[in-house]
């Protein structure tokens, strides 16, 4: 490898030997492309004319009045295909073309990354196969149909827990079978080097734009920049814009699920420990034998046992702080944002909103920029069923 695979103690290239050559090829293509004006120009053009960048920042007037916290949203939910994922899939899709690959493969949990990959494949004229856990395919049926409509083959993964983790394993296995003509388009800041760096590069447009936008609008920087963290690509995208601003507190919000018992959440920094999963060394949820534990979150996009290695570094250095919000808090925030601002956000993003709402007292008077990483259309059926339960729980409380 020509560039450093590590984020301090975390990251690395824990991949089968068969994948080392393709990873080196990918790294070389990325190092070349990231300084290439032609590549960057094409990436920028597609983000503007196809994906819908720049996305605006929105001031939440009514929520701000309610909370006494100045809430700003970075509107990645307004992007084509409904989430920040498209930034990365267009970027990697262009890289794949540059490397002469004919086919994209990708994993998907909620289906957002799968849809964004299938979209990039259609746009760029590449074949596409998406690996999706059987459990996720069941609960995200519309996205499954979208991928097929976009011309992708969808392979349903029955192995293991039949969710995102198993879809990633299966996509990696498929890549070892044909690394010469296939590009594995990994969807988050995870996996073996260079993936965490490549995905962070393509997503860093979020933080770059947001920083310029808040300075222009507010006349200064926000006190806090917050984002939900599954693998953590939307959060890294936001954080990278503010790493050089020590006055901006960075907060990553993990899925607290139904509480911190094993198997009930995906708060890796709360109960996890360093380990190796899917190609990198990072914080993982594991048992005492080093077996990966099952996870739970109301949002499929946060429902994963490991976190991006750059987050592990940012946490260890203290530059970013990581917290977790329960399913219930996220669902309540999902509804609040819909009613106060007319924005139906993804359940993933609702975790970050929920953290701000629950901590309004300690954040009073401060400005908080939340990355609203996706829209909630995909979650409607699931969320409305769950909301009934939250409402009845609240009725009991008051």
């Amino acid at each position, binding site marked *: *490898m020509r560039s450093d*695979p590590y984020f301090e103690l975390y990251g*690395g*290239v*824990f*991949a*089968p*030997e*068969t*994948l*080392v*050559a*393709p990873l080196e090829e990918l790294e070389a293509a990325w190092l070349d492309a990231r300084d290439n004006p032609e590549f960057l120009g094409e990436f920028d053009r597609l983000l503007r004319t196809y994906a819908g960048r720049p996305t605006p920042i929105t001031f939440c007037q009514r929520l701000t009045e309610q909370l006494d916290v100045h809430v700003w949203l970075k509107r990645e939910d307004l992007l084509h295909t409904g989430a920040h994922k498209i930034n990365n899939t267009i970027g990697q899709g262009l890289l794949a073309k540059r490397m002469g690959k004919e086919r994209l493969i990708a994993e998907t949990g909620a289906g957002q990354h799968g849809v964004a990959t299938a979209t990039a494949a259609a746009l760029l004229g590449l074949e596409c196969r998406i690996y999706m856990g059987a459990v996720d395919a069941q609960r995200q049926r519309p996205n499954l149909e979208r991928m097929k409509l976009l011309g992708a083959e969808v392979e349903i993964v029955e*192995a*293991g827990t039949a969710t995102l*983790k*198993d879809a990633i*394993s299966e996509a*990696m*296995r498929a890549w*070892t*079978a*044909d*690394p010469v003509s296939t590009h594995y388009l990994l969807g988050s800041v995870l996996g073996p080097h260079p993936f965490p760096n490549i995905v962070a590069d393509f997503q860093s447009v979020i933080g770059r734009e947001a920083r310029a936008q808040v300075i222009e609008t507010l006349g200064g920087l926000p006190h806090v920049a917050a984002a939900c963290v599954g693998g953590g690509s939307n959060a890294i995208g936001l954080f990278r814009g503010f790493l050089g601003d020590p006055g901006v507190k960075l907060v990553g919000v993990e899925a607290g699920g139904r509480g911190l018992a094993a198997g009930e959440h995906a708060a890796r920094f709360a109960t996890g*420990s*360093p*380990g*190796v*999963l*899917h*190609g990198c*060394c990072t914080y*993982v949820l*594991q048992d*005492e*034998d*080093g*077996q*990966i534990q099952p996870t739970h979150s109301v949002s499929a996009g946060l429902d994963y046992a490991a976190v991006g290695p750059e987050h592990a570094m940012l946490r260890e250095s203290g530059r970013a702080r990581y917290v977790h919000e329960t399913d219930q808090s996220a669902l309540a925030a999902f509804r609040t944002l819909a009613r106060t601002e007319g924005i139906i956000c993804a359940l993933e993003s609702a975790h970050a909103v929920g953290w701000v709402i629950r901590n309004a007292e300690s954040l009073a008077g401060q400005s908080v920029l939340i990355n609203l990483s996706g829209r909630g259309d995909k979650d409607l059926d699931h969320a409305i069923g769950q909301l009934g339960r939250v409402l009845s729980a609240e009725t009991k409380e008051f």
Partner: protein
Amino acid sequence: MADSDSRLDRRLAERDKQLVPYLMAGDGGLEWTRVFLEVCDRPGVACVELGVPFSDPIADGPVLQAAARRAIEAGSSLKAVIALVEKFRRKNDTLPLAVFSYANPIAKMGLEDAFKAIAEAGADLVMMPEVPLEESAPFREAAAENGLGVVLFAAPSTDNARLMQIAEHTRGFLYLIGRYGVTGASKELGGDLDAALNRVQAVARTPVAVGFGLSTPEHVEYVHARADLAVVGSALVERLHQAEDPVAACRAFLARLMPE
């Protein structure tokens, strides 16, 4: 302390062409695995790879994925495998053993502690399918301190410069992944294998083992015409799982693959 080189060296000196069976430790129960090890201790078997089951085995096909799941459910783990090796070694000091594990169970126990325990139990080699040359230095150091060897892997996609380094740093033997893809039976060998094997043989300082996809006596013969060691994993594991009398099945399959 494991007497690694000599145990494997003695075995390798017995004959040129040998078999390396892979067992998923704890598939069917750990006591069965110990019995299979005894069955494997026969002329023509150079070493046994003892698989530590892992929940997310990215280099394995469906057969070994399922076997790992069964083994975990049966209570297998790195700790259990170490205890198994220790128990086996009390009665058998000749059959070389390679502990075959994904990185995470080792990392969870702590690299130093894990390798010390593996060595003290009496294993000879450690193999880690997703620890490539780049990440292997700390593992090789910890292994060397404890008298263990780390077997490194090469693949058809490995270039010659890397091959040189892999050949230099591997211990025991050099494991060539015979084709693209994950573990599990193939119909035919060849294609990628022949070209890769020529390149590996040109730089190898140790015996070369070929694995991934071998399931028949013809496959073993094919490999033995070109390399010293033939690894049989999924095909053996599935047979032991399906068989009514797994001990007899193990004995018969090994005899078919490698007549004494």
